[in-house]
C-alpha cells in the first residue's frame, strides 16, 4: 500500500475512535507510527500530540455544539489533570514504567468488566 494511503487510513481510524470514545487517539496512533512508518519512539509520541490535539479540539467543538458540556465539572477535572500531568511527567524517570503499564492494563480490564456488567 502506498505510504500516502496508509497515512490517510491511520488518520481516519484515529479520528473516528477518538471522536466516538472521547479518548485513546494517542494510544492508537503511536504504535502505528512506530511499526508501520518506522518512526522512533520519542518522536512518535511528540508527533502523536501534534495530530491528536487538532482532532480533539474539533471533536470538542462538536460535543459542545450538541450541548454535551459542563463547565464546572470540566474546570475541576482539568485543573486536577494539568497538575497531575506535570507531576506524572516529572516522575517519569523515577518509576518502573514497564510494570506500571501492566498494572494499569489490568485496572483498565477490570474497569471494563465492571462497566459491562453494570446497569
Amino acid at each position, binding site marked *: 500500500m502506498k505510504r500516502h494511503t496508509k*497515512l490517510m487510513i491511520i488518520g481516519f481510524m484515529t479520528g473516528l475512535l477518538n471522536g466516538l470514545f472521547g479518548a485513546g487517539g494517542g494510544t492508537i496512533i503511536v504504535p502505528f507510527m512506530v511499526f508501520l512508518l518506522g518512526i522512533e519512539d520519542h*518522536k512518535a509520541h511528540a508527533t502523536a500530540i501534534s495530530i491528536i490535539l487538532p482532532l480533539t*479540539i474539533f471533536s470538542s467543538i462538536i460535543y459542545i455544539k450538541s450541548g454535551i458540556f459542563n463547565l464546572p465539572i470540566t474546570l475541576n477535572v482539568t485543573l*486536577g489533570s494539568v497538575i497531575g500531568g506535570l507531576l506524572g511527567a516529572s516522575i517519569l524517570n523515577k518509576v518502573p514504567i514497564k510494570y506500571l503499564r501492566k498494572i*494499569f492494563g489490568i485496572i483498565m480490564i477490570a474497569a471494563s468488566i465492571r462497566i459491562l456488567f453494570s446497569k
Partner: protein
Amino acid sequence: MKLFIIGFLSGIIGGMGIGGGTILIPGLTIFANIEQHMAQSVNLLSFVPTATIALLYHLKQKNVVLNIILNIILSGLIGSLIGSYISIYINSYMLKRLFAVFLFIMGIYEIISKQKIGEKQNEKAQNKKKQ
C-alpha cells in the same frame, strides 16, 4: 474536590504516557456518577491545555515529524466528525458498553505493549548519572 482528585490521579498516569483519557473516563463514570457522553466531553477538553504545553515543548525540541502530519490530520478530521456524531446519536447505555469493549482492548494493549519510552528515558537518566 472529588472531581479534582480524579483528574489529578489520571493526570499523573497520563503524564507518564500510560492510558491517559482511557483511565479518566471510567474514573468519572464509576466514581463520580457522571454520564458517559459528559465524561467523554470532559476528557476531550481536559486534554487541550496539557497537550498544548507539551506540543509547544516538542516543537521547540524538533521532535515532531512534520512531513507526515498534514495527511493524517486531514483524514483524521473527517474521522473525528463521523466518530463524534455517531457518539452523540447513540444512547448512553450503548455508548458505555461500546466504550467498555474499547477499554478492554486498550487494557490488553497496555499489558502486551513493547513501547519503551519511559524505559529509554530511564536509561538515559542513569547514563547521565554515570557520566
